[in-house]
């Protein structure tokens, strides 16, 4: 279950209630970002960040470094095989 889609925070619409506009491929939706903001850090600083959105809530940050690492591992699988054969 649990459709979750990566999107980018483009605007803070209501800092008090942790609401932000998130862009998914040109489609925008107001989303609650309470679960991904740290206390004390101004909401504005999250603009531009990628988050995983589920039913109108940003539930996690997307970690670019880890994404690259995962893809790198897949790439290396191939190299390893070419090496072996």
């Amino acid at each position, binding site marked *: 279950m649990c459709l*979750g889609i990566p999107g980018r925070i483009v605007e803070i619409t209501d800092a008090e209630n942790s609401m932000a506009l998130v862009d998914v491929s040109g489609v925008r939706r107001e989303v609650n970002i309470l679960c991904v903001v740290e206390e004390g850090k101004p909401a504005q600083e999250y603009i531009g960040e990628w988050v995983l959105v589920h039913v109108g809530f940003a539930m996690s940050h997307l970690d670019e470094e880890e994404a690259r690492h*995962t893809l790198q591992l897949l790439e290396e699988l191939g190299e390893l095989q070419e090496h072996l054969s």
Partner: protein
Amino acid sequence: MKYVDEFRDPDKARKAQQQIHRLAERIMQCRSGPLLLMEFCGGHTHTIFRYGIEQLLPEAIELVHGPGCPVCVLPRGRVDDALALAQRPEVIFTTFGDAMRVPGSRQSLLQAKTDGADIRMLYSPLDALKLARENPQREVIFFALGFETTMPSTALTVLQAEREGIENFSLFCNHITTAPTIEAILNDPDMKLDGFLAPGHVSMVIGEAPFAFVAERFAKPLVITGFEPLDILQSLAMLLQQILEGRSEVENQYRRVVQKQGNHPGQQAMAKVFQRNDRTELRGLGSIDHSGVRISDPYARFDAERKFPLPGVTVSDPAGCRCGDVLKGLIRPWQCPKFAESCTPQQPLGALMVSSEGACAAYHQYADVQTLKIKRQQASVADPGAH
């Protein structure tokens, strides 16, 4: 689309596929019988069918499509309760689209809507709260469904309602938790599973620790898995690697999203608003200890079950349905005698035919139904004693 397209790359898929074949071959040198790997989550089932992943796998691997589809395991009696709420004249009943076609004992929400009930499909529980704000003279009920991925969103919506002092909003709570459901499957004496793909988005909320018992107590390998097709292939390779090396550990393939500890604000909101039930009935699986939650006492006024009278009648599954056996991986969907006969996506009899996430519906939509039927007939000729 960033973070999506890269994980659908056919070149990398080929590499992962070769790796899977190589590992499976080595494992099969010293065992007989297929490797049964369960993807617990319906989202994974959907990806597996949408991208034809089973075709890419060696014959030795059988994917078992687990019960991680909250709509599929929703008992018929609970649907009847939802209908009773939706039919109250003062109520605007709101739900995710997923629940619309789930049959109760007489009707689905879609049919009740046709009959005039005010039922609205929404994308987010926040939209239900907005409806409550805009319609102070009506009672807005949100059909809260789903595993831990969805629970923070409904919990936070209740907390928001409390903050705003909105009194005409409540949840009809049917949330269930993942770990007890997996445990129930592992406790089944007929269980033959060799490993699990664990739901990435549930883990994003609850973290890695709640799955540790699978590796520690049941000695089964488990990989927390993302939802793109490459995620699934990579996780299958990781599972096979563990099996080959005789390890059983919790590994995390979906590191770009899942942190070891999960999401703290989400967990806090859940802990505040929900409390565990002693026992919860899951369709096809029966009663499972501590799998479900209800709204905790301090938030009772947001609990539709306490706000309105409910029939609360338990309705057993139609006779002959073998949903439970499919969910536990004991039979394949097409081996059920009702599959594509009296149970179809148009007229679902069993839970797994209801949601597009359900294993039976997925087979019906994406596989060749005629071939499966022939396969079943041949099997029953070869083994007339079956069933």
